[in-house]
């Protein structure tokens, strides 16, 4: 039940202060984003047109999008089963597993890049043997996907776990008593009921992946994903050269984000509220 407004009464002092504090943080975010976009269109529209026409820019953006999608799909396949186990089973060291899942969130991005390089680099634990059969990670799309997966998979697992946890376990008991196997009750009951939280998790995972820069730049400067391209232009040619690409990438991200957000809100039906 939503909290109904207390209409017709004077707002209290603390409400006013709360609203002001909230407005500060909101305007900080809105101003930062809109200022860049507006400034670009007002002060340097030709620069934006050039960026839009540059096939190299689109190549980078497309690379960012599809590697992020690839990382999200891998996170789905590997993360959802883990999330289900965490939500439904008790086992030794469960707390430790939950902590490990959160670790990528807390590790600085360049540290993650260095760590991945020690494993997947030319001389790395996995990178070295795989290189002998022709699979390379450094400066390859595969390396980018690995880096994006590492930083973004916690969002998938945590969101899906919340989804599964919110389902009454007795629904699964009933499904079993009606003749469904464990796998059947997962597919017919748990998965459909957690689907919204899983979709939300996938969106968050994708968003986290496409925004990554630090880890990717260490393991794969080339081929350049869009954030790297923006950084490269900024370092080489300054703000004026990088801003149009930044605006373009932001517009693409916001567009996808808005579409997915509208799409995912359709699932509210099965949710707890």
């Amino acid at each position, binding site marked *: 039940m939503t909290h109904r407004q207390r209409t017709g009464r004077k707002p209290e002092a603390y409400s006013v202060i709360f609203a002001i504090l909230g407005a500060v943080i909101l305007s900080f975010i809105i101003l930062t984003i809109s200022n860049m976009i507006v400034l670009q269109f007002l002060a340097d529209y030709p620069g934006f047109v050039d960026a839009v026409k540059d096939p190299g820019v689109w190549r980078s953006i497309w690379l960012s999008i599809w590697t992020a999608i690839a990382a999200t799909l891998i996170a789905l396949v590997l993360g959802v089963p883990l999330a289900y186990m965490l939500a439904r089973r008790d086992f030794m060291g469960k707390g430790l597993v939950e902590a490990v899942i959160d670790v990528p969130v807390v590790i600085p991005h360049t540290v993650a890049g260095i760590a991945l390089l020690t494993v997947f680099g030319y001389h790395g634990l996995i990178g070295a043997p795989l290189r002998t059969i022709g699979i390379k990670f450094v400066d390859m799309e595969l390396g980018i996907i690995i880096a994006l997966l590492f930083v973004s998979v916690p969002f998938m697992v945590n969101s899906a776990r919340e989804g599964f946890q919110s389902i*009454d376990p*007795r*629904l699964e*008991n*009933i*499904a*079993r*008593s*009606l*003749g*469904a*196997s*464990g796998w*059947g009750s997962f597919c*017919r*009951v748990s998965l*459909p*009921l957690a689907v919204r939280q899983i979709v939300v998790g996938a969106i968050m995972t994708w968003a986290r992946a496409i925004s990554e820069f630090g880890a990717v730049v260490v393991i794969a400067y080339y081929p350049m994903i869009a954030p790297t391209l923006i950084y490269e232009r900024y370092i080489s040619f300054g703000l004026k050269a990088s801003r149009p690409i930044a605006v373009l990438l932001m517009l693409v991200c916001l567009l996808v984000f808005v579409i997915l957000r509208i799409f995912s809100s359709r699932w509210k*039906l*099965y949710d707890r509220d």
Partner: protein
Amino acid sequence: MIEIEGIGITWGSEFALKDINLHVREKEFFVILGPTGAGKTLLLELIAGFYQPDAGVVKIRGHDVTRLPPERRRIGFVYQDYALFPHLSVRDNTAFGMRMRHPLRKRDVFNLGRAADTIREHRQAIDSRVDEAMDKLNITHLGHRKPLTLSGGEQQRVAIARAIAMNPPVMLLDEPLNALDARTKDMMRDELRRIHEEFALTTLYVTHDQAEAMMLADRIAVMMDGSVVQVGTPEEIFQSPASEEIAKFVGMENTFQGTVTGREDDLTIIKIDDEHTMEAVSKYNAGEQVRVLIRPEYITLAETSDHTSARNNYGGTIKRVVHMGPISKVELNCDGLYLAAFVTRRSVDDMALEAGMRLCASFKATSVHVIKHGVQI
């Protein structure tokens, strides 16, 4: 039919079932009665196979099913709050069990010549069974609704139809009437009994409501603190509770301490205090300390003590009359002996009962239940 032998389980360190032994007969309506937290639901869940006991064996029709997963036990289960699948329509909820137990086999589908026919026949077989279950529970008109849009009573019916549709020999019901309002409760209670007969079920029914237990049960097991403390017919449980705790739980409002002073065949004289004695049918001997219990509905009120064959008669003053819907409770002070009696509202009006009035309370010696003081029998 269902044999439970020595079932025990610990739940963290907090909670346990202790050495439960029950034998439910074929086609019996068996009620497990006990206060909240006695472990009744957990026992049902163990029988259904949702959890595994730490000790003991569950047998159904002589087969040990203790290690069998729930989907291979063919037990219908209805939870207190129904646990309907919120993402499926009423019809899909009802059909769930049939679709799970009789999936379309691959070889039927790939046997190209007859595939279409086979699928149609298969669907029709499931459909007719589901239709029947929905019809029996009067939910046919709700088929396309989602469970969350239904009333409590309707949800209840869907939960039962869902369990019934797969034609289980055994049905477990976990306080199914608890969440319903009084009128729906009355209706559903009759219906549950009717379904039990019609589908020839063996039903295990959990409740904390003694009236419900009395109305429905062929036999009752009373559970307290994780143990079964008494098993018997409703009459045995309500008229001869095995301990004071059970007696209180099943609603014996009048309890007294006393000493047996004499006995003649089965008629015992019990001294309550210096001024009051009671006659009871029991087997205790003179000198024994006993506790005496009388159900309030067995006490008759009259203006004089004439015309009564009852052995126990006490003159007293009405302290209070409490109206409890169709019946009223009359609290009496019989010169220091406090008695509560249930009478119909009609009698209250006819006799114009009110506080301060003097009258006579009487009850038969056979209505007095005697147990050894403080000791479980």
